[in-house]
């Protein structure tokens, strides 16, 4: 115990002398960012899992075109699961000589098992939240249904052959699914009325959803029992596939944030390693004396180990606390993206931040600290005896290990971890060599420079290993900042630039062929320019060359999701604007049975020219031969289609029409006129969606920037660590120089020059790296025009040198103010 007291006392002394400040700061920064991200990810995870159930209306949902097998029901009952089911299908409703294609959903009494519905008796202010569907004999409808069919609440509504009462307006449906083009209005009925409608016949197109909730273990057992029995047409729903717009943005945010926090940890680690190195070197003498006094190597290690553990615990605890606040701020920044109610964080997530702190300390501080064990007691007599540096394997191995574990945690993917790690290492190695080479070349200049410059430069060259790591640490931070700033602004600017001024910003969907002529006339009367009208037939791709698609597609591909939903199929004589034929030829003569497939989907589904595709439309099958592949630009905001058929193939099937048009912000009120006159037509305000997209992008980058501030802080600790690591040496050198007659201003100049140069080199490196990354990102990934950012070349090196010089300046005052008399005394 007395040894522990000694350790504490030594720690107390060292902390009072400011030895450990930088180390503690760096550790706190690392832990703060790690805790914040871990808390953030954890809360998101919890939120997603609880809300997932809401979004699917149950914990486990199977969709199937056929009724539920009886043994599923018995099995679910045996496992004491709650079960509900819905049947979705389209039906044309006719009332008051008006016709409307509605999307009917027949629900069982237990629906919804999770989440809720919202209904109102006409007035939107009196919305009710309910946990049950309509009772038998009633229909709850979207408001559009009433206006389209000239009904009011309480009127009779006939679905198929069954007369029901339209009793409530449905305003919210927990598990509403739908893509862009399928916005037919909802009619919800009780499934007790389903047989009486007479709509469900063998072969009719129905989606059944079988929903279950219950104990996690029971669900798990049911899941395992069920999975092998599913046939290709039956599928388990998954939040990530079935509500992709929700999952992916947040998932990506989480991943980016995680990876940026690794940058923070890495940079802090460098600072910790540097600070520990100085600490170690300053303790060589004391250690030699302790060894002389009889402490064994093991005791030495224990003594210093204790101090570092105490330090780690303190700093990590502070970091955890700060991380909590940082995480709150993160949620605030991302509030627009997140669900209203976010789950509380688990204690484990805080603990993770703590563990990261201890691990980082271990990985980066242990190797230099181990040198103390090697200090020879003979050093008491011979000061020049220095212990060997720790093996490079140990130094880099430990650091790499912890970084690898962290990346693995955030990506959850071994291959990706290896790739990131490999690419990162290689980049660092190449850059390190580059900087090292650059320094060597500059070294050649030395004899030709004047005294001030020579000393300034020599400061960098003297310890080129440390200089290289400082330059890298600082430029990585700067690169991250530059990227997040330029890419964001360029992306948004470019996107806006690409849309011509009067590009369509609205879609009109579900136009019935009979309405087309008058709708066109009305648009012309309102002075609205519109794109071509395309017929839309809903259909599903089922076979490629007579092989079911499910056997062809790879999991999680774009193709897979396309086979799970109905596609909007169209037919036209002319190649749509902006589409380009990449393979095959566009039909010159009208010949039915041809289809042109969008190129990327074709690649994903492995569709080649002259393949035979089979589609189901309603209960019928259509076959067509692929005669061309097309590329198209999804950003144009014109109706775009994966599958375009030659005229004559789909004409016989019921279709609606779609068009897009441009409406300036100021003329939005025109929409009301249109909506009133054509209640069944759905108008999508794309400009609103674009705006939303922009805010999402902005919020995401804000959150990432926020983390970059941490990395900037960490970058500064590296700088300070570097300045202080060499401070003793600089002070001694300064004293000698002053004894020989150097002025203070000379000392200040050479040090400012040294740090400024360091920052300048880091700045130049930053510009080179960011330009390279931006160039490849723009040309390879985002396909936007690249032009060099001249202002970067100007600003970044200057900013770099100013930042580093400022950090250096804090140390310079010790050097200049130290009395030269110290050369007469042993340090």
């Amino acid at each position, binding site marked *: 115990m007395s040894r522990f007291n000694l350790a504490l006392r030594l720690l107390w002394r060292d902390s009072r002398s400011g030895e450990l400040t930088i180390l503690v700061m760096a550790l706190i920064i690392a832990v703060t960012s790690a805790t914040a991200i871990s808390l953030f990810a954890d809360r998101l995870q919890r939120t997603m899992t609880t809300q997932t159930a809401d979004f699917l209306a149950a914990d486990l949902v199977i969709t199937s075109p056929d009724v539920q097998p009886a043994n599923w029901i018995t099995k679910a009952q045996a496992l004491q699961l709650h079960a509900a089911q819905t049947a979705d299908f389209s039906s044309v409703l006719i009332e008051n000589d008006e016709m409307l294609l509605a999307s009917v959903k027949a629900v069982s009494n237990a629906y919804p098992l999770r989440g809720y519905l919202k209904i109102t008796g006409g007035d939107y202010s009196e919305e009710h939240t309910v946990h049950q569907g309509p009772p038998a004999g009633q229909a709850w409808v979207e408001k559009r249904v009433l206006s389209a069919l000239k009904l009011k609440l309480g009127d009779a509504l006939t679905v198929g052959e069954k007369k029901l009462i339209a009793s409530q307006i449905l305003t919210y449906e927990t598990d509403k699914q739908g893509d862009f083009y399928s916005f037919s209005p909802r009619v919800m009925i009780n499934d007790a009325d389903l047989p009486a409608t007479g709509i469900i016949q063998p072969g009719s197109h129905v989606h059944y959803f079988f929903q279950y909730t219950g104990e996690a273990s029971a669900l798990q057992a049911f899941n395992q029992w069920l999975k092998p029995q599913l046939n290709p047409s039956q599928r388990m729903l998954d939040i990530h596939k079935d509500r992709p717009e929700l999952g992916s943005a947040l998932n990506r945010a989480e991943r980016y944030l995680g990876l940026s926090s690794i940058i923070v940890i890495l940079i802090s680690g460098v600072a910790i390693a540097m600070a520990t190195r100085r600490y170690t070197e300053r303790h060589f003498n004391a250690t030699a004396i302790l060894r002389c006094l009889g402490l064994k190597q093991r005791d030495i290690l224990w003594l210093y180990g204790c101090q570092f553990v105490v330090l780690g615990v303190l700093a990590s605890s502070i970091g955890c606390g700060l991380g909590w606040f940082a995480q709150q701020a993160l949620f605030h920044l991302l509030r627009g993206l997140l669900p209203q109610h976010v789950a509380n964080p688990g204690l484990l997530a805080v603990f993770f931040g703590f563990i990261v702190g201890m691990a980082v300390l271990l990985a980066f501080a242990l190797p230099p600290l181990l040198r103390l064990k090697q200090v020879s007691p003979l050093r008491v007599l011979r000061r020049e005896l220095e212990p060997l540096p720790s093996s490079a394997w140990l130094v880099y191995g430990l650091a790499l290990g912890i970084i690898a574990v962290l990346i693995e945690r955030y990506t959850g993917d071994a291959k990706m971890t290896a790739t990131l790690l490999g690419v990162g290492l290689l980049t660092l190695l190449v850059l390190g060599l580059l900087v090292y080479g650059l320094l060597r070349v500059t070294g050649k200049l030395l004899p030709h420079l004047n005294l001030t410059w020579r000393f300034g430069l020599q400061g960098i060259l003297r310890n080129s290993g440390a200089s290289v790591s400082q330059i890298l640490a600082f430029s990585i931070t700067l690169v991250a900042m530059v990227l997040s700033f330029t890419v964001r602004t360029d992306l948004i600017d470019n996107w806006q630039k690409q849309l011509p001024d009067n590009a369509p910003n609205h879609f009109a969907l579900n136009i019935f062929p009979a309405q087309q002529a008058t709708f066109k006339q009305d648009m012309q009367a309102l002075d609205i320019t519109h794109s071509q009208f395309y017929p839309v037939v809903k259909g599903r791709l089922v076979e490629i060359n007579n092989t079911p698609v499910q056997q062809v597609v790879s999991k999680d591909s774009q193709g897979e999701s396309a086979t799970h939903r109905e596609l909007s199929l169209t037919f036209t004589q002319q190649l749509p604007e902006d589409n380009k034929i990449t393979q095959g030829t566009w039909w010159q003569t009208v010949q039915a049975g041809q289809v042109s497939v969008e190129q990327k989907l074709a690649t994903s589904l492995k569709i080649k020219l002259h393949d035979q595709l089979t589609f189901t439309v309603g209960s019928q099958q259509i076959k067509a031969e692929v005669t061309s592949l097309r590329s198209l630009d999804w950003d144009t905001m014109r109706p775009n289609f994966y599958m375009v058929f030659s005229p004559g193939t789909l004409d016989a099937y019921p279709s609606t029409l779609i068009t897009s048009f441009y409406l300036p912000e100021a003329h939005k009120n025109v929409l009301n006129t249109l909506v009133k006159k054509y209640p069944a037509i759905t108008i999508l305000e794309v400009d609103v969606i674009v705006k939303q997209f922009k805010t999402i992008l902005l919020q995401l980058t804000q959150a990432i920037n926020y983390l970059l501030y941490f990395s900037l802080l960490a970058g500064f600790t590296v700088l300070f660590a570097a300045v202080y690591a060499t401070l003793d040496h600089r002070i001694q050198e300064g004293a000698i120089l002053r004894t020989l*007659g150097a*002025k203070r*201003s000379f000392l200040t100049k050479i040090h400012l020059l040294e740090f400024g140069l360091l920052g300048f080199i880091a700045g130049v490196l930053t510009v080179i790296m960011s330009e390279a990354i931006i160039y490849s990102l723009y040309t390879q990934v985002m396909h936007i025009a690249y032009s060099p950012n001249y202002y970067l070349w100007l600003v970044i090196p200057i900013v770099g040198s100013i930042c580093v010089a400022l950090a250096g300046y804090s140390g310079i005052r010790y050097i200049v103010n130290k*009395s030269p008399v110290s050369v*007469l*005394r042993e340090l």
Partner: protein
Amino acid sequence: MHTHADLALKNIIVAESLGKAVQTSEGVLHILRSIHLCIKSGESIAIIGESGSGKSTLISLLAGLDTPSSGTIRINGHELTTMSEDGRAAMRNELIGFVFQSFQLLPSLTALENVMLPLELGGDKQAKSLATALLTRVGLAHRLSHMPRQLSGGEQQRVALARAFVTRPVILFADEPTGNLDSKTGATIIDLLFELNQENNTTLILVTHDQALAARCQRTIKLDSGSMV
């Protein structure tokens, strides 16, 4: 510019009632008390005394490395105590050379660069040739580009001697120059020091423990607990 003839037999260093006290946790510590000293140009003086008697403190004051708590020092007629630190630095560069017990070479500079350094700080254009000449004089012509850590203690001290004499200083301060060397190497260094001193007609102020060495100087000053005896 001072020439040595001008300074002949002038009082080059005059110290009056010099005192140095520092504040410590146990109160004020008087390191030096009322030192009166008058050193003529070209004189050689040994300062002896026990360890801790204040020898290093005394020469640090005389050389303007530190400021006294009381009293005055005049070097070559200039009052040190009223000069700024940078003024004293310029004066050191011009008039004073140093040799230390622990050599105090800059580890990142070569032997030649170390010797050139005081000339360069003074803006001398012929730094390289002068430094090379002096290193040749001390017998290190073949070690010009070596780093201090590649040199033995004796060789390092010879570089330090070259550095001290390269500016042709009027006064040379040597603080136990052989303290870190074995006796044989120490003897050669001392011989070299006296030779160079003779050649340059420098005023020498030498701190030492060694009575024999002190006897080679024209005058001896003994310090005991901060006072001259």
